[in-house]
């Protein structure tokens, strides 16, 4: 960590109509790394990104992007960043190609370079066939891909991606992950938000978990997961009698009983551990109807960190929106 880190936020505060949306957010992203901002609906992810990309002035605190202050040196910040907002911001009445060429020109590329870049990005994002259709006719996933392509027109050194894969099918999702990894490989610094732990897990070097405008945990994905506990093995047994016998056999390893035929056991995720447990049950002549292995989810992280479910707290806020 150093003072030349491309993204630095100190004590960011923001309130809307006296509601504190950000309550002192501290962040730091090292050059060429990915930081994932993880949090439930309404946590303040988008607000943070909007402040860092100069769209919204903070009420307190300070943020430096590429060494420039987002309030006083907004213009220099804008020269160093690309932004993909939460909702696909494509011009519906322009074709995919026109959208990309326009963005190229607005990033002050020459007309020819803009054209070339557009063709290249259409290719990369699997949009060549739809290049000459207006974006109004695109599917959600296509719009999202175009949206992401638009923020890459100028190969900015710093990229903000607000929920880049929400609402995409698995294939598009993988394609975008791929693309993001390539960008990082080329040295881009990325701050992305997500609601999915697996996405953060796959892409991010570090994860910052926020809730109600505050950082509640920070670390690598492994650090976070070890906080939450490891993977869980869920066992479904034929009878309540078998459940009782299983609990007896496994004792401390049993996390909880889900219902009268299902129990959850803590495992470290390795085959050896799972096999050991299943062997033990077999040796005790306990019949297992079925079993599943669960990875820790965002919900588990939340449950652990905040004592409340990630999604449950949000229903009321969503109503206000």
């Amino acid at each position, binding site marked *: 960590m150093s003072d030349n880190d491309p993204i630095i936020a100190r004590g960011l505060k923001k309130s809307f109509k006296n509601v504190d949306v950000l309550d002192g957010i501290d962040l730091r992203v090292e050059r060429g790394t990915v930081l994932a901002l993880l949090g439930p609906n309404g946590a303040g992810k988008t607000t943070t990104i909007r402040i860092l990309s*100069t*769209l919204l002035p903070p009420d307190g605190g300070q943020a430096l992007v590429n060494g420039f202050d987002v309030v006083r040196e907004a213009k220099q910040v804008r020269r160093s960043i690309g932004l993909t907002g939460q*909702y696909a911001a*494509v011009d519906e*009445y322009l074709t995919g190609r026109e959208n990309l060429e326009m*963005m190229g*020109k*607005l*990033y*002050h590329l020459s007309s020819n370079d803009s054209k070339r870049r557009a063709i290249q990005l259409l290719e990369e994002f699997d949009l060549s066939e739809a290049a000459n259709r207006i974006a109004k006719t695109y599917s959600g996933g296509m719009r999202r891909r175009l949206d992401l392509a638009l923020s890459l027109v100028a190969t900015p050194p710093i990229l903000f991606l607000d929920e880049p894969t929400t609402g995409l099918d698995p294939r598009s999702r993988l394609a975008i992950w791929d693309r993001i990894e390539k960008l990082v490989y080329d040295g881009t610094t990325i701050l992305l938000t997500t609601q999915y732990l697996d996405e953060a897990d796959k892409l991010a070097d570090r994860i910052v978990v926020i809730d109600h405008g505050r950082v509640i945990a920070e670390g690598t994905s492994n650090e976070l997961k070890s906080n939450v506990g490891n993977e869980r093995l869920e066992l479904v047994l034929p009878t309540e009698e078998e459940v009782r016998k299983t609990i007896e056999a496994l004792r401390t390893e049993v996390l909880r009983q889900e219902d009268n035929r299902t129990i959850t056991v803590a495992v470290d995720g390795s085959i050896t551990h799972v096999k050991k447990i299943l062997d033990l049950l077999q040796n005790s002549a306990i019949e297992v109807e079925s079993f599943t292995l669960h990875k820790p989810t965002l919900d588990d992280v939340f449950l652990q960190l905040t004592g409340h479910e990630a999604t449950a707290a949000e229903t009321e806020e969503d109503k206000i929106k």
Partner: protein
Amino acid sequence: MERSAVFWIVRDTYVLIVRSLRHIFKNLDQLMALVIQPIMFMLLFRYVFGGAINTGSTTYVNYLVAGILIQMAAFGAMTTSLNVAADLQRGIIDRLKSLPIASSAVMTGHVVADLVRNVLSSIILIAISLLVGFSPTASIQDWLLITAILLLFTLAFSWLAAIIGLLARTVEAVQWISFVLVFPLTFASSAFVPTKGMPEVLRIFAENQPVTHVIEAMRSLMVGTPMNDHALLSAIWCIGITVICVPIASYLFRKHSTK
């Protein structure tokens, strides 16, 4: 290659003008409105009210054209509000704001598209009115002046409309705000009936508001009604409104914390 700041402002603006011009022909709903509206207005007013309104020595068709032209321009300008609000709603303004471009460029794009749209629908309107009895006495110079006034008026209203779009934020809000603003301004004017018959307070408002000056100036140039100082006042109003609105719109554009 280093270019001057002015170069980039001009080019950014040009790029965004091209964008908005493309919208005219790709947004079919707006294009339909552009073509159908002038025809409807002309025919309805000409035949529904034509027999009932006394416009003195001028025939009603001749009286009407300037009024409808300006009403249409005023409503046409509100497409700028709609398009600005749509950009806001879709997050396009956010994206453009995160670029290092001049803050007026996006709106200049919409405003210029408005000018082009209004010139197109005005041509259609004048063609239709010639078919239903419009007989202008204007010379070529007069027509050039008429065009200049129309453009000035559209410019002023489009910038005003840009502010409305930025403040209203949603397409739905723009719809009622522009209705509330444009209807009184265009109806409480000399657009469709002479102001003489209006109640005192309304008449004073109607005779002194910019829309009437603009209409009277155009009418005088088209069919020779008295000019007085309408042309001068029109120019002052339109330029005044534009000069005030451009910086306000640019400020709001930068300042706006959108959702």
